[in-house]
């Protein structure tokens, strides 16, 4: 979840502070709240990051996917043409999909659900990823 948190958080914070400019004091408290939440979450995340090496690898992979997705989006925006639309779509969706699947796996690794052990979660994750990649590969043509 890590990287997406920081990205989205920035957007939300800036948006909200601009929208409630009417009451300066209110805006002040709100922005303070946001800052605090941001700081605490980051701290907690840092703890997770240091504690488990597997999570670190997983997060790096997720980050790479976000970057990859962003690059594709940027590329399409820059050349102003999405001609092989299905190719772009497949590329982009595989990034998003893999990212989301990683998040699912991460949730299960941090706090294993009842009836789904860590090992099983990893196995299920690999099956889902394989399916996803197969479908996207097929879609790319």
């Amino acid at each position: 979840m890590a990287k997406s948190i920081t990205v989205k958080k920035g957007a939300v914070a800036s948006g909200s502070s601009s929208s409630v400019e009417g009451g300066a004091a209110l805006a002040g408290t709100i922005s303070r709240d946001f800052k605090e939440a941001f700081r605490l979450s980051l701290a907690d995340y840092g703890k997770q990051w240091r504690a488990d090496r597997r999570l670190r690898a997983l997060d790096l992979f997720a980050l790479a996917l976000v970057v990859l997705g962003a690059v594709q989006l940027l590329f399409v925006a820059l050349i102003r043409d999405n001609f092989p639309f299905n190719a772009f779509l497949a590329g982009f969706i595989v990034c998003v999909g893999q990212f989301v699947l990683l998040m699912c796996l991460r949730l299960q690794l941090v706090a294993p659900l009842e009836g789904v052990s860590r090992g099983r979660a990893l196995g299920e994750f690999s099956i889902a990823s394989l399916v996803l990649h197969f479908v996207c590969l097929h879609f790319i043509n």
Partner: protein
Amino acid sequence: MSGKSTSARTGASGAQLQSEWAAAVAWMQTVLKVAVFGSIVVAAVSSRLFAVVNFESIIHEFDPWFNYRATKYLVENSFYDFLNWFDDRTWYPLGRVTGGTLYPGLMTTSAAVWHLLRRVGLPVDIRNICVMFAPAFAGVTAYCTYKLTCDIKDSRAGLLAAAFIAIVPGYISRSVAGSYDNEAIAITLLMLTFMFWIKAVKRGSILFGTCAGLCYFYMVSAWGGYVFITNLIPFHVFCLLLMGRYTAKLYIAYNTWFVIGTIASMQIPFVGFLPIKSNDHMSALGIFGLIQVFALGQFIKQQVSYKKFKIITAVSLVVMMVVGVLGLFALTYMGLIAPWTGRFYSLWDTNYARIHIPIIASVSEHQPVAWPAFFFDSHFLIWLFPAGVFLLFMDLKDEHVFIIAYSVLCSYFTGVMVRLMLTLTPVICITAAVALSKIFDIYLDFSQILFQEDNDDAEGGKKNKKSEGAKIWPLVSKLVVSGSFIFYLYLFVYHCTWVTQTAYSSPSVVLPSSTPDGRTSLIDDYREAYYWLRMNTPEDAKVAAWWDYGYQIGGMADRTTLVDNNTWNNTHIAIVGKALSSPEDRAYEILKEHDVEYVLVMFGGLIGFGGDDLNKFLWMIRISEGIWPEEIRERDFFTDRGEYRVDSGATPTMKNSIMYKMSYHGFPELFGGEAQDRVRGQHITQGDVGELHYFEEAFTSTNWMVRIYKIRDLDNEGRPLSQVSAATKAKSKRRAAQRRPQIELRV
């Protein structure tokens, strides 16, 4: 339905005996379950075979004929040929990109079954596979419903639900043998998808989410009604989020389903990029975004205090809502997202279809439902249905929310559109099974009474007198309650069998009828006429007929049609409607422009068949009036008093239309100058029916239900056709005695 008695005798002897006893009971239960299940499947299949027993192994109705034709094409050619199939034998002269405009799930499945059976060494005719397809899948549906209901309540309710869905008429209506339609497989897949979805939500397993996604893909490939799932699952998630029931399980289930389901559904050529463009799919996308935000919120919630979290949530919610709504508007405005498609829109604004799209309004499947249909299709389940929903509310688990959302949404949709009765039926079965099994849990459980007896024996006959009454009364009341409900079940079976037999087993290609002396006979005019077409016309002849018969002409007569039941081109349909409602000379021009050689009309006036072309005529007029309001006017076909008449009081426009002339051509002469139209109950006299100059009668079936006319070629002497026909008529005398059908009265 067993399984309650295990706990009864616990206090007996040693632990070993107990465990052996428990194992024996468990084994018995399994055997019983399998036996019950076997009989359910047998019942499901056999009750769908009425059509085959009463008639023969034949494909039914209209759409199945196309599916059958497509399956044959798929079996004869490769899968890729099938996907790229351009059909030049329909929608002449446009043709139809069939491969890209159909849902291939059904054909692919039956072709796969065909190949599999051949591998195993059972070469079965593809037609028989198509005929038996729906009953076989009904058995699978029963199993999926069982599994789904097990997750909702327990295996007792599951077995009941499976038994219900196996024989309930609401589902049989679309899955009798020979009804080889998309719905036959779609309901199975619907249940399968929901089963995996419930499992995924309950367990939080990525695997089940993936399975749900793959089943969803299968469903998309099989039926246009998949949009229902696309909206129901997000709606379920949305309800859960609103109820504050976000969990990691929900996150996992929804995300895996959405990601895999969406990308997979885009593989179907007909669906293409719709999942990211049309508004029908936007709710799923929106919930996908929302659940990410919820996950993020959950993470923050663990860190900060409750009060601060509330402020943060409120502010972020407002901002996101504003941005989201603006974004949606902007995208729709810029044309990046397709507007709501018409068929879906007609569900919400019930007047939309009636005003804007006559072709949708003309299809009887899009009509609202009057109440008797509900009882007819589900007997006493219909009043257990609300009770079951209420009971589900009482222990409102996540999966119960799903069933409730399904019930509420689908009951509304069914009220608007009779076709969706099919999707409502499974949930009626599930909820009714829940309600009934709750009742049986209480009133079929005699263990307490038996147990009490043991206790009393141990205590000695102390309170014998009191226990006597305490034993009898519960027993009586339990017997009465459970007995009455078992009686309803018994009645239900009879009702279902009766409905299936009388209403849903007619192939509507062959019609049953009974003669005055009570024998049943079959009216086989359709096949007779199509066979005539196949044998007596050139192979590339173009046949004009109203779109209802397009698939049948393509499937049975193998001739090129102008329009068919795939109503993709309204204008083209309107052309045929215009030709049929125009006077002869005008119609001749239109039909000649489209190279038509034969015109086929249905006429039920002789035997009283209500679904003929003259009864559908108003829709033809309306549809063509929608395109050419100044040439065709509905008003002209009604008398001054606003009546739809076909006898001597009919308007000149009506009498001049070729539909009128072709339907009644030679009809009064058959009865000596004046004949009664049995459908409309009006008398047609010889003077009413004008001569046909440009068309000549080519074929009329035994009971006059199908009449085929040939368009005359231009005269080689250059005379106008009206003169030609007068000349030929003078030369050759009319057939003096028309073939008059033997059977007088038919029911």
